[in-house]
């Protein structure tokens, strides 16, 4: 059990050391690098201690609280520490010269401390305590790093505080229903609960986790929040921070409530709790990806996509079949790998050119080939095309939805994928392809410390694409631990009775096809490299001053088709609620008029009212 304590104490030490050394930037950088390397080492070594439990010395309300290690939180533990290490390596150079970098490292280690605490907690109290620490530290760092970062961080905070209050209600409600905070105890007693009450309790937990993992109706805080802060922090957030909400959903949906109890909550025939949750997940897939088409800032576009991809994970879990749940969990890992890769590439471009505005960039492939390659691997993964890992988990999810008999959820997934392909191509085209503007002529590729995380993630994205078996082993163990049927897997794909996926063969044939084409290519005579100004422009001479790019409003036609359906319902409801609270508070403030005679009337009316009411009561 010492591993979890080591993890948490190292993370806490990270916070303390960062505060102490906040004056000298260099010491702080290497201290946090050391801390996170240690964290990663311990989280990988932890597989030997799965299953252990540890209790805190003191109790709260008479219940013992503590940590436990299961395969699920081992899986998430690796992801958290791995991504944090890569983010810190990347931000060694990225954060130089930016003000607020001391703040950045301190809060990053505090946030990791919170997240590790959340996933290793074995009862609701520790879960809630570390959940609060996590959401407060996210708010802390999200409010620095950009000019309108505080405003968007404030919006995030309002959602987060509401979610944690709902969670607190859920924690205490379950305590009063089951008499204990511990997950295992709740899991045993869950059967005894009446159906409507289980439904109510489950929806409380699911709603509070959906706010954190940005499910459709409550997702509007994510795009602004993630895109206005430091880009490396955006990578960290969209990579793993929102997936803690998914962890919570997996833990409660399958770990504590169990698939049987959830299936009992059916309204009419097929329409059960999972189907309703699937519909929300479907909306989360479709709406954000088509909003991403409109964005002309790279970070906002990717933030909208991390909302969309969250929908894939949720719909995988909502499908309920072993394949679907495996697909959902695997997609968490895949998404983390390729979205962090993409945001690192965007950060590299921002580091060199100073802007992420898609209308101003272009042609950077000539100057930054490694970042281009990183972005290419990332977008192929994000779009879910075969050689990369995104395809494998999407394939699981599709099969689960189709064979599970949810055609319209499958169609939502297809629409989501197409939306992703469109907006993802716009990202790589506007940034790396097209004419290189004059002002970026002397842009150089990023240094080694920023390239290393990119190379590692590229290997992960391609490796998992061709050999998904590497991660499927862990996921199968999780499914068994959660009491679900595991998916029969092999190193290069899966073999089920009704169909087989062999990614090795697919990639091999693809390489074969490329080889044949290479031979045909060599048949022709030698290629002649020409500069970008030697281009067909209906006879006109191209010169350096005229920007001869097609970046602005890349999908104008699609926007014409979609515009009538974009009613901005979400923004209007939010303004409505905000307006309502303002109006109510304005009205109530007016009660305290400041004139003494009104106060006198208040006292007398209160006196009379008390008499009337108490007369009945006594």
């Amino acid at each position, binding site marked *: 059990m010492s591993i979890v304590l080591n993890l948490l104490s190292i993370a806490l030490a990270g916070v303390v050391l960062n505060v102490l050394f906040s004056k000298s930037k260099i010491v702080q950088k290497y201290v946090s690098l050391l801390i996170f390397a240690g964290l990663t080492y311990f989280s990988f070594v932890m597989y030997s201690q799965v299953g252990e439990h540890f209790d805190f010395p003191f109790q709260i309300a008479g219940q013992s609280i503590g940590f436990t290690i299961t395969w699920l939180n081992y899986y998430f533990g690796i992801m958290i520490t791995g991504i944090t290490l890569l983010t810190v390596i990347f931000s060694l150079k990225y954060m130089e010269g930016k003000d607020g970098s001391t703040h950045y490292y301190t809060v990053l280690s505090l946030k990791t401390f919170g997240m590790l605490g959340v996933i290793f907690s074995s009862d609701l109290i520790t879960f809630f305590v570390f959940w609060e620490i996590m959401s407060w530290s996210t708010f802390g760092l999200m409010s620095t790093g950009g000019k309108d970062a505080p405003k968007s961080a404030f919006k995030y905070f309002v959602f987060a505080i509401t979610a944690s209050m709902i969670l607190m209600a859920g924690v205490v409600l379950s305590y009063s229903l089951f008499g204990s905070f511990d997950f295992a105890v709740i899991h045993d007693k869950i059967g005894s609960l009446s159906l409507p009450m289980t439904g109510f309790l489950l929806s409380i937990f699911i709603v509070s986790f959906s706010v954190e993992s940005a499910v459709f109706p409550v997702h509007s805080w994510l795009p602004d929040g993630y895109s206005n802060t430091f880009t490396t922090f955006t990578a960290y957030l969209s990579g793993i921070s929102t997936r803690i909400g998914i962890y919570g959903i997996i833990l409660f949906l399958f770990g504590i409530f169990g698939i049987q109890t959830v299936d009992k909550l059916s309204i009419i025939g097929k329409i059960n709790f999972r189907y309703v949750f699937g519909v929300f997940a479907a909306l989360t897939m479709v709406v954000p990806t088509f909003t991403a088409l409109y964005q002309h800032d790279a970070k906002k576009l990717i933030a909208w996509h991390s909302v969309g991809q969250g929908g894939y994970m949720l719909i995988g879990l909502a499908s309920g079949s072993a394949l679907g749940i495996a697909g959902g969990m695997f997609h968490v890992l895949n998404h983390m790998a390729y979205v962090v890769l993409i945001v690192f590439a965007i950060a590299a471009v921002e580091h060199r050119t100073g802007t992420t505005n898609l209308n101003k960039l272009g042609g950077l492939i000539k100057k930054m080939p490694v970042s281009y390659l990183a972005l290419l691997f990332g977008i192929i993964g994000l779009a879910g095309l075969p050689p990369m890992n995104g395809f494998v988990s999407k394939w699981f999810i599709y099969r689960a939805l189709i064979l599970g008999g949810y055609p319209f959820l499958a169609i939502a997934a297809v629409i989501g994928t*197409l939306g992703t392909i469109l907006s993802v191509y716009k990202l790589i085209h506007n940034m790396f392809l097209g004419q290189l503007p004059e002002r970026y002529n002397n842009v150089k590729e990023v240094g080694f410390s920023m390239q290393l995380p990119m190379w590692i993630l590229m290997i992960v994205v391609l490796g998992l694409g061709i050999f998904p078996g590497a991660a499927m082993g862990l996921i199968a163990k999780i499914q068994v631990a959660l009491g679900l049927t595991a998916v029969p897997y092999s190193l290069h794909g899966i073999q089920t009775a009704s169909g087989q*996926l062999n990614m090795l063969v697919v990639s091999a*044939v693809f390489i074969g096809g490329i080889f*044949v084409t290479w031979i045909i290519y060599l048949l022709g005579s030698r290629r002649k490299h020409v500069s970008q100004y030697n281009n*067909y422009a209906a006879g006109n001479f191209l010169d350096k001053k005229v920007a001869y790019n097609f970046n602005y409003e890349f999908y104008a036609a699609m926007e014409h088709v979609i515009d009538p359906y974009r009613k901005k319902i979400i923004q209007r409801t939010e303004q409505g609620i905000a307006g309502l609270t303002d109006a109510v508070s304005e009205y109530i403030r007016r009660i305290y008029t400041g004139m003494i005679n009104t106060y006198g009337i208040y006292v007398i009316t209160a006196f009379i009212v008390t008499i009337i009411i108490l007369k009945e009561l006594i």
Partner: protein
Amino acid sequence: MNVVLWIIFLPIILFVIGTFMLGYSRKFIARIERRYGPPIQQVFYDIFKLMNKKTNISHGWMHDIAILMLLGGTLLTMYFVPVPGFHFFAQYGDMLVIMYILLIPALGMALGVGETANPNGSIGISRALMMLAGYDIPFVLTFIGFAMINHTTSMYDLMLAQQAGGIAGWGLISQPLLGIAALIALQGMLGEKPFEVMVAPHEIATGPMTEMGGKYLGIMMIQHAIGIVVELTIYINLFLGGAVNWFEYIVKLFVLFTMLLSVNAVFGRFRTDDAVRFMWKIPLPLAIIGILFIIF
């Protein structure tokens, strides 16, 4: 042993069939315009001339890799689509894999054309991707409908299920709505006239092919030839009961292609948003109603 033979000769056979079909299409359209039209083997000449060009303009390493991805992706799809007598790879990947592999050539071309830094190319690619979003949704919906009926996503099993029922078993006959929706979507997938906005010569100088010349354009034409055959074979396997022998297969290919060509020869060219609206207003509802029939 014959698997290896099939692997070597299948691309050549399909290339020849595809190129003759393209030659036939140009003659067919010429005949409609009351002129003789080029000889059947015209496309061979074109491809040969392009491969024989002395200068081949390339704008960067991505331009070349994109060409490899383009044809490589189509060959990959070709191997996974079952053809009479050869379905060795079908067991390793089902229709979902095929649906995604179809997108690799599109992405490869998009990256290559992006690298050529010509706005005509970029406009062409953005139109092509919008069209893709337009026609792909109904097409996949029809496939999902079939997969739900037979509880399998493997194209080869779907084909066998249809052949079991004889003519009545064909997809087009048993599920007419899905068949028609897929036919209209196929028109878009092949880039035939009403949905040909991405290569409009007059507006954007043949869109993606603006900067492609010499052997690059040659390989693109090879890919176009094989691609047409592969996409038609997908439709045949799903809706026309696949083919048992090669004669039936070629007849079905040409009949289906002639139907599409006749539509192509008559229609003008949709604007991009009209094309996408058309695709989402006609075939998509058809497919959805088809699926509703299947469910209830």
